[in-house]
């Protein structure tokens, strides 16, 4: 993590996301919303996460946007027909609705994908604690994010173990259904029962101490953070003035 953008304070990055969301919702039309996407591609590449950004975007948003166009343009009938051939009819209202909808989805999603790619969890949790959120709150989020990959790995191990014990995982639906429980069962029971020991282990680490938690890991807002926040704030104010008062 040597990239200057990744090193920004989490709330600085969050303020960029918030500004994008508000701008996207307040701005009429769809052209400016669509232009948010290429801007974020550039920002993502500058932040050193360009490829990851594009791959996450294509995996999550692309199909959805495509489907929205098909649905709104061809399947929901309205008054004005733009184009028609055979059973396919393209409606003007549908086209406009899908442009408005997808432009917002793309803009907001790209800002969020970027945010989570360039903000280490550790920084996020530090900022949340610093902002006064309780340690229980950050603990639950942090341990969830850390536990998921561990459980995925564990389920893979169980899957392989069950396969080698001769439990069939391919074949008819009944066979596959039957394979499901012996796989999930041990995982559920062991992980649930482990929470019991985990409570005590946390208590042994003074989790219930009533003093305010400190952090060995430290990060702070630097001049560049204040600069970015000021630019965003002033820029947004100018936008609001232009949009509503001019």
């Amino acid at each position: 993590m040597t990239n200057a953008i990744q090193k920004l304070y989490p709330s600085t990055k969050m303020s960029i996301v918030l500004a994008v969301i508000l701008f996207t919702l307040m701005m009429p039309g769809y052209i400016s919303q669509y232009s948010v996407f290429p801007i974020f591609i550039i920002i993502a590449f500058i932040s050193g996460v360009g490829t990851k950004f594009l791959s996450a975007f294509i995996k999550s948003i692309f199909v959805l946007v495509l489907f929205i166009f098909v649905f709104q343009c061809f399947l929901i009938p309205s008054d004005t027909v733009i184009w028609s051939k055979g059973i396919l009819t393209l409606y003007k209202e549908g086209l406009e609705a899908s442009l408005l909808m997808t432009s917002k989805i793309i803009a907001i999603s790209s800002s969020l994908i970027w945010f989570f790619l360039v903000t280490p969890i550790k920084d996020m949790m530090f900022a949340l604690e610093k902002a006064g959120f309780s340690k229980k709150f950050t603990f639950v989020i942090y341990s969830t994010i850390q536990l998921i990959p561990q459980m995925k790995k564990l389920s893979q191990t169980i899957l392989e173990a069950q396969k080698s014990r001769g439990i069939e995982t391919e074949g008819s639906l009944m066979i596959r259904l039957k394979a499901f429980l012996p796989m999930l069962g041990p995982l559920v029971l062991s992980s649930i029962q482990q929470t019991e020991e985990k409570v005590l282990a946390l208590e042994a680490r003074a989790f219930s101490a009533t003093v305010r938690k400190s952090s060995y890991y430290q990060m702070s807002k630097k001049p560049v953070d204040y600069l970015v926040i000021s630019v965003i704030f002033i820029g947004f104010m100018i936008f609001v003035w232009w949009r509503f008062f001019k």
Partner: protein
Amino acid sequence: MSMITMKNVYYQYPLEKEQVLKNINLSIEKGKVYGLVGHNDAGKTTLCNVIRGFIPSFYRGKLTGEIELDGKTIQEYSMGDLATRIGYSFQNPFTQISGVKETVFEEIAYGLENLGTAPEVIGEKVRELIAMFKLDALQEKNPFELSGGQKQRVALAAIIALDPEVIVIDEPTSQLDPQGTEEIFKIIDLMKKKGKTIILVEHKIDLIAAYVDEVIVMSQGEIKMIGKTSEVFTNKEVLTYGGQLPQVALLSLALQNAGITMPTIPITLVEAQQAIEKILSREV
């Protein structure tokens, strides 16, 4: 000086018909190492949980009798206070990882963070512990990626970071290989030298014989025997409570039955060697 005293303690789990602890009377002296032995459901872990105050606050159920820590009843301490008074290391190395730290260094620091310790102080203390526990090579590793033995060592370091006067260690080596076991016992020895009061539940009888000052034998929820390691571990009564004796003690007792008199019954290999040398020199 007595660190922990228990008087007429009885306990029953909420869903069980029988009491798991019966008439427990015990005095734990400051600075001594206690070995708690007995078969699997003798009530050893339950006793530890009572001492640490997890019973009844977490397990619920019915607890009667008096438990005092350093002159105050255990109920007078808050959960946070107890964490700094009585360290507790558990059997399962996997559940002791906090799950919210990305390096071993931070994992050890976690308890201190919960106590609101200043970052500079935390850094200093953790570096000290890492040196003491020989964890240098591991300090940047993710705690999830450690082996069982390494996790157990990190967990113990994380507990000792809080600098408790009493340390309860519940079967630390049950899931460890011989090398991991040896590392843990080295640490226990180090803590003993630092004057900590230690209560150790352990099945490896030869290790107990070598490291602890006093042995407590439990069976069916009761304390059956308590005394100096050299006395308890040379007494065959232990066997009637489902306990074990060190191999060398058993051998010496058998020799004695066969008419070979021993100067003392040894409980460790070193003692056995000395005893045998004495017998041999006598016969020559």
